[in-house]
């Protein structure tokens, strides 16, 4: 029997510890998102929700390449990016279930997950809004000589709104340490992105307009994403300015909970599921000599975490009425007159 290759024997640039982390992060996202969907069917997740099932490798790869203190800005499809920075599953599910144990105690909801202590500076529900905001966070780092980098995640649909173009130009001329990550999942809401975009690659084909390199990454492969992230972060930290990275990926569910995604051509979902990021990564781990049992152990641990979180959220009370009017203004209240 031939010996399995090891990370060291392949001169691996990523290494076993990081690979296990990337795998675990993807499984956390998969399990938590699937659970969010199940809880929605039980009417325990209220309001809307936008899942990242199928897109796990993008969030995991970039988060894996970030350093502590780096900042993330995400969209309303931001559960994955929030979890990837280490925010506990319980707080994320709690917010989706609008309970008092939620990340923002139910005041924000699914579309606004924020955990400043984890560097998750917010999830933004107005398309494009957070690209300029991410520029500002990066400007602060540049101004104060701090070495953190800001990452801004957004979808393919965002590339057709004005704020995208304002932010890209602004980041380029000020040489800001910000990395713009387009998750091209082929659909802007219910419409194929190609039907409404003048170029084939909605982000990458626009990069040259802002003097940036054209970067397209396989968004189903966490290693490829991780390497792209590392390269962009090194560039940003060394004063090289912004990057724009387009990750080709696919969402398995509809745009939001209201969308059964009937607009997809037959066989498309099945085709993409053959390139499932978690399946790809399991094979990757095995190729690097990591055994089935180690993989199964991670799967079981994550499932336990999500199960425990679910039970805690089900038992958690709704938010109390006394937070209704808190934190409108910095004095803690909502007074607008004397």
């Amino acid at each position, binding site marked *: 029997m031939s010996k399995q290759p090891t990370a060291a024997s392949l001169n691996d640039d990523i290494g076993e510890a990081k690979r296990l982390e990337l795998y675990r992060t993807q499984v956390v996202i998969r399990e938590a998102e699937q659970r969010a969907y199940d809880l929605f069917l039980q009417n325990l997740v209220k309001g809307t929700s936008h899942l990242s099932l199928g897109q796990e490798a993008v969030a995991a790869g970039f988060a894996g390449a970030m350093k502590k203190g780096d*900042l993330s800005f995400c969209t309303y499809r931001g559960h994955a990016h929030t979890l990837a920075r280490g925010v506990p599953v319980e707080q994320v599910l709690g917010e989706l279930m609008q309970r008092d144990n939620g*990340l*923002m*105690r139910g*005041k*924000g*909801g699914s579309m*606004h997950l*924020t*955990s*400043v202590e984890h560097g998750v*500076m*917010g999830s*933004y529900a*107005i398309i*494009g*809004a*957070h*690209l*300029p*905001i*991410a*520029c*500002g*966070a*990066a*400007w*602060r*780092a540049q*101004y*104060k000589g701090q070495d953190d980098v*800001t990452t801004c995640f957004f979808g393919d649909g965002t590339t057709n709104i*004005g*704020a995208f173009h*304002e*932010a890209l*130009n*602004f980041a380029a*001329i*000020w040489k800001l340490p910000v990395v713009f990550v387009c998750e091209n999942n082929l659909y802007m809401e219910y419409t194929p992105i190609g039907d409404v975009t003048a170029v084939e690659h909605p982000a990458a084909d626009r990069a040259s307009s802002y003097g940036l390199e054209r970067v397209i990454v396989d968004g189903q492969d966490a290693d490829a994403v991780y390497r792209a992230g590392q390269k962009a972060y090194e560039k940003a930290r060394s004063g090289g300015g912004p990057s724009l990275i387009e990750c080709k990926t696919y969402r398995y569910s509809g745009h939001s909970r209201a969308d059964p995604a009937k607009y997809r051509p037959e066989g498309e979902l099945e085709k993409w599921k053959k390139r499932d990021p978690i399946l790809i990564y399991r094979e990757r781990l095995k190729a690097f000599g990591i055994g089935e049992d180690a993989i199964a152990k991670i799967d079981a641990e994550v499932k336990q975490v999500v199960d425990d979180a679910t039970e805690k959220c089900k038992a958690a009370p709704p938010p109390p009425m006394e*937070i209704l009017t*808190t*934190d*409108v*203004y*910095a004095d*803690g209240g*909502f*007074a*607008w*007159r*004397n």
Partner: protein
Amino acid sequence: MAELTYRDAVARGIAQEMARDPDVVFLGEDVAAAGGVFKSTVGLLEQFGPKRVRDTPISEQAILGAAMGAAMTGLKPIAEIMFSDFFAVCFDYIANEFPKSRYMTNGQVKCPLVVRTGNGGGARFGAQHSQSVENWCMMIPGLKVVAPSSPIDVIGLLAASVRDPDPVIFLEHKSLYAIKGEVPDGEIVDTLGTAKILRPGKDATILALAYMVPRALEAAEKLAKEHGIDCEVIDVRSLVPLDTQTILGSVAKTHRAFSVEENPRLCGWGAEIMSIIADEAFYDLDGPLVRITTPHVPLPAADVLEDAILPSVDRIADRVRKTLNS
């Protein structure tokens, strides 16, 4: 003590705060090298350098978004939107992002920034460069809204706005940039949420804001001189927070209230204040609450038309006199 124009007071106020706090930065279109299209930021680039005083592209969303991101992470940005009409192209930040971030995140995100802008009419610029948009901002929970009428108030309220931990919309009036006023030497810091009684009186309270303040004062002098009517004129100064105590105290004394508003009639700030007076001081009143406003039309460009549509000294005086005599 020196005589200073309103426009020079803007630069002095910004300079005072930038000298005090290295986290205060300033960005906008043509604000640095050109010193501002209204010449209200002349000298700041030379004094504080290009790292702190930055010209931007014509990208209002990028300006306000960048200001917010910087504010969230530790700076105290002052952003200029050249004309307040341009709020319409970056209103997402004013309506959705600045004011809601703290609440939605259960207090995790802060947004201490100031948006300065040239507001109001009188410059013959037509319907898209002349609006009074204070009511666009006043209605949004989470914002503070300030509109000074004199050079000393520009400095003091700007300093208070920069030091305030909440997002502040700071409305400078384009037709006031050239006015002059006495300003003491040294640091000036005022308090948000305080109205000022500029002329005490006993017969009626006239509430005014920004460019309407000098007109209300002139109307009050005319009413006193020609008709023996003694009006109390209050410069509201700060719409949010609103100094209702000063206003209600004045109405308790005069028993009459008028607002002079440059904004078009519907949902102007005066409507809100009048409803407070009606709710809380109804039995103090001896007559109807009267709003003197621009009518419900876009502003015309031609001087004769614009002069006819904004509340004038004569219109204010006539309306007050006729109401009191009816």
